[in-house]
């Protein structure tokens, strides 16, 4: 028997691939000084790096007046929102975090990680000397987040409810921020929403409302059976995409009142409509890309199963198209978040504009670098967190894998 012959006598040699054991020196030679070109690159990069770091170091630790940041935290966060009513903003933050906490507990994943991180950060910040009121609210928000997570942890049946509940929470938050809540707490004018608060509201509303409109526009543009609707959608998309956002905002500010026939609409809402329109047309193009990536066979198979056109779109085509469009959509939302800074055109005060308010204040003249650096870090953290979360979602959806 051949097998008995070979097995005891000749020991089977397992040939493993050679493990790369590099000494640090070998690594350096391989990655930094591989060729004369590589050596040159290393030297140039090192010089640039050393120059930038020394410049930054010199500025950050000897010249910069960092006290401008803690002294103006309120302006960065909520701008001109009346100081006596600030508890409303804190309460809204607590409610939003708690609702997110419920969703995070039920869904798990990257949302849960972010919320734990955020809750922990707020809990730690509660120990900073920010004044008893802020510290108390920070602790409360942190507590609300963790309580909500603990409540819903592992309850998968809450998943859908944790999304629909926003339909209730969002109007409630808006009322809490702006409404007339009794003699001591009069209504707040919408223009007083400012700072980071305004940035977040503008971005969130534009995403939530602009996304479905964008999907409809994309479907309208892809629809070959209804040429009139197709032409209309194409026209809207191309016209809005061809014009800078600044112009659209300017139109919302100066042009729209002409068309409203005497009805006065709040400036924030007009600016928001501009952002929604802008988001919708860019989302439409991304979704159209997704729609084009779906093979025709899917449509034919769905029709063959007896689904009507509406069912074909809603149950077969759109889910696949949206999944394929996730990376592009995330980029769109990131761009939108950054572009909310353009509301300065209509005179609203968002996070960036609040920063400009701070460093044009006579007390803080010459602090523009510190302020802009701080605001840049805030934007960077938000964008980076969103991009990271999107990558996790892409992984979970198996994009590019199947």
């Amino acid at each position, binding site marked *: 028997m051949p097998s008995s012959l070979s097995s005891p006598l000749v020991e089977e040699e397992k040939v493993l691939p050679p493990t790369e054991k590099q000494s640090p020196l070998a690594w350096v030679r391989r990655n930094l000084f591989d060729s004369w070109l*590589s050596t040159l690159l290393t030297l140039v990069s090192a010089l640039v790096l050393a120059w930038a770091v020394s410049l930054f170091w010199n500025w950050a630790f000897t010249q910069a007046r960092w006290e401008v940041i803690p002294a103006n935290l309120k302006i960065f966060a909520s701008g001109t929102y009346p100081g006596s009513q600030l508890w409303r903003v804190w309460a809204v933050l607590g409610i939003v975090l708690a609702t997110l906490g419920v969703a995070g507990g039920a869904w798990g994943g990257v949302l849960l990680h972010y919320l734990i991180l955020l809750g922990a950060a707020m809990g730690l910040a509660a120990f900073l000397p920010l004044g008893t009121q802020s510290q108390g609210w920070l602790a409360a928000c942190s507590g609300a987040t963790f309580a909500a997570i603990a409540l819903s942890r592992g309850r998968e049946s809450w998943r859908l409810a944790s999304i629909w509940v926003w339909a209730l929470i969002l109007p409630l938050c808006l009322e809490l921020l702006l409404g007339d809540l009794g003699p001591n707490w009069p209504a707040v004018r919408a223009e007083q929403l400012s700072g980071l608060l305004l940035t977040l509201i503008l971005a969130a509303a534009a995403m939530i409302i602009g996304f479905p409109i964008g999907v409809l526009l994309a479907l309208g543009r892809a629809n070959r059976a209804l040429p009139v609707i197709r032409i209309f959608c194409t026209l809207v998309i191309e016209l809005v995409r061809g014009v800078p956002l600044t*112009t659209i905002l*300017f139109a919302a500010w100066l*042009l729209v009142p*002409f*068309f409203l026939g005497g009805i006065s609409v709040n400036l924030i809402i007009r600016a928001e409509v501009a952002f929604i329109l802008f988001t919708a047309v860019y989302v439409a193009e991304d979704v159209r890309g997704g729609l084009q990536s779906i093979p025709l066979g899917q449509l034919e198979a769905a029709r063959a199963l007896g689904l009507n056109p509406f069912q074909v779109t809603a149950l077969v085509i759109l889910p696949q198209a949206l999944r394929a469009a996730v990376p592009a959509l995330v980029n769109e939302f990131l761009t939108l978040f950054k572009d909310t800074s353009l509301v300065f055109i209509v005179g609203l005060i968002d996070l*960036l504009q609040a920063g400009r308010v701070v460093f044009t204040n006579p007390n803080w003249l010459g602090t523009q670098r510190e302020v802009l650096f701080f605001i840049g870090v805030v*934007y960077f953290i938000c964008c980076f967190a969103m991009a990271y979360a999107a990558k996790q979602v892409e992984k979970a959806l198996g994009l590019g894998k199947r």
Partner: protein
Amino acid sequence: MTSLSDQSHLRPPWWRNERILKVLLQVAFVVAVLLVFGILAQNLLASMRRLGISLGFRFLGNSANFGITEGLIPYDPSESYLKALVVGAVNTLWLSAVSIVLATVMGFVLGIARLSSNWLARQLATVITEIFRNVPVLLIVIFWYQGVILTLPGVRNSLSIGGLIFINQRGVNLPSLDLSGWFIPALAIVIGAGWGIRKLLLARRPELGSLQRNLWISAGVALLTVACWVLFPEPPVRLDIPVLERFNFRGGIQLSAEFTAMMLGLVTYTGCYIAEVVRGSFLAVPRGQWEAARAIGLSELQTFRLVIVPQALRIMIPSLNTQYLTLIKNSSLAIAVGFSDLFNISSTIINQSGRSVEMFAILMATYLTFNLVVSYGMNWLNARVKLVER
């Protein structure tokens, strides 16, 4: 037994006939759209009547009466709104063109650095692109303007680079090339001579390799250039170096602080996006192409130049087009730092004349035209480099 004509009652009734439904749906849609537009138009006309203004483009001929701080073409406040708009449009184009060229260069450098085998260059490029891609372009522009340029030394203490370039609070002064009346003849002589030498060499010394031939041609051209310089009564090209006078520099090209800030902001922001496009395009070239090119004996540089770059360019062009269009639209942020671009000047005109409807029509038409022109150019390029298929 049912005859064919009897089956007609089996057909769905007209209100469930898909073809009729489609027509009805579209008619309803058109009616709804027309209704909305009708109401809007009526509102517009009503408010215009109330304000006592009428539609029309005749106001463009009126005198503008406001100054423009800088422009490529001469302008005087007594000239018309139309002239002011043209100055703004030219400024937008000039800013966009310079920024597009520099952003492309920066994008290629960063994008290729991110693919390099050198660890340090790769990390450095990654950090730079991540920083600039994750903050608003407006923040970058304001940072360059108020955080960097306005904090530079004044005109008297300008930073000088080699005595040629001077940088101060008011912007950048670059040397320019001054062409004299003798430039065209000199150019004609040099080009003609180069062409002649090439013809001569091809006819008399066909055994020369292309490298040797080019060396000969270059030597001849260089000799003639020097001869032109010496023999002409006035040098054909002169370097105009900015000179500090009492209040500011004279001569050379002056880039204002506002222009420089806008340009730097647009270049750093868009450059990092282009870096991503470049990186993605090179990664999209299949690895087998590298291996195959090396296997047929091309050197690494040849592989890159002859095999990889043409394919990567093909993938890159549509995305580059998008980035260029975004850059042109972002150039309207110039209003934040006070550079007189098209949008800034239009907003001044709207404030002065109250003609918002007409001005928006003009703005939309102009930006759409810019976009169409760039798209057309990029599509032409795309058609040139795209794979020729049967």
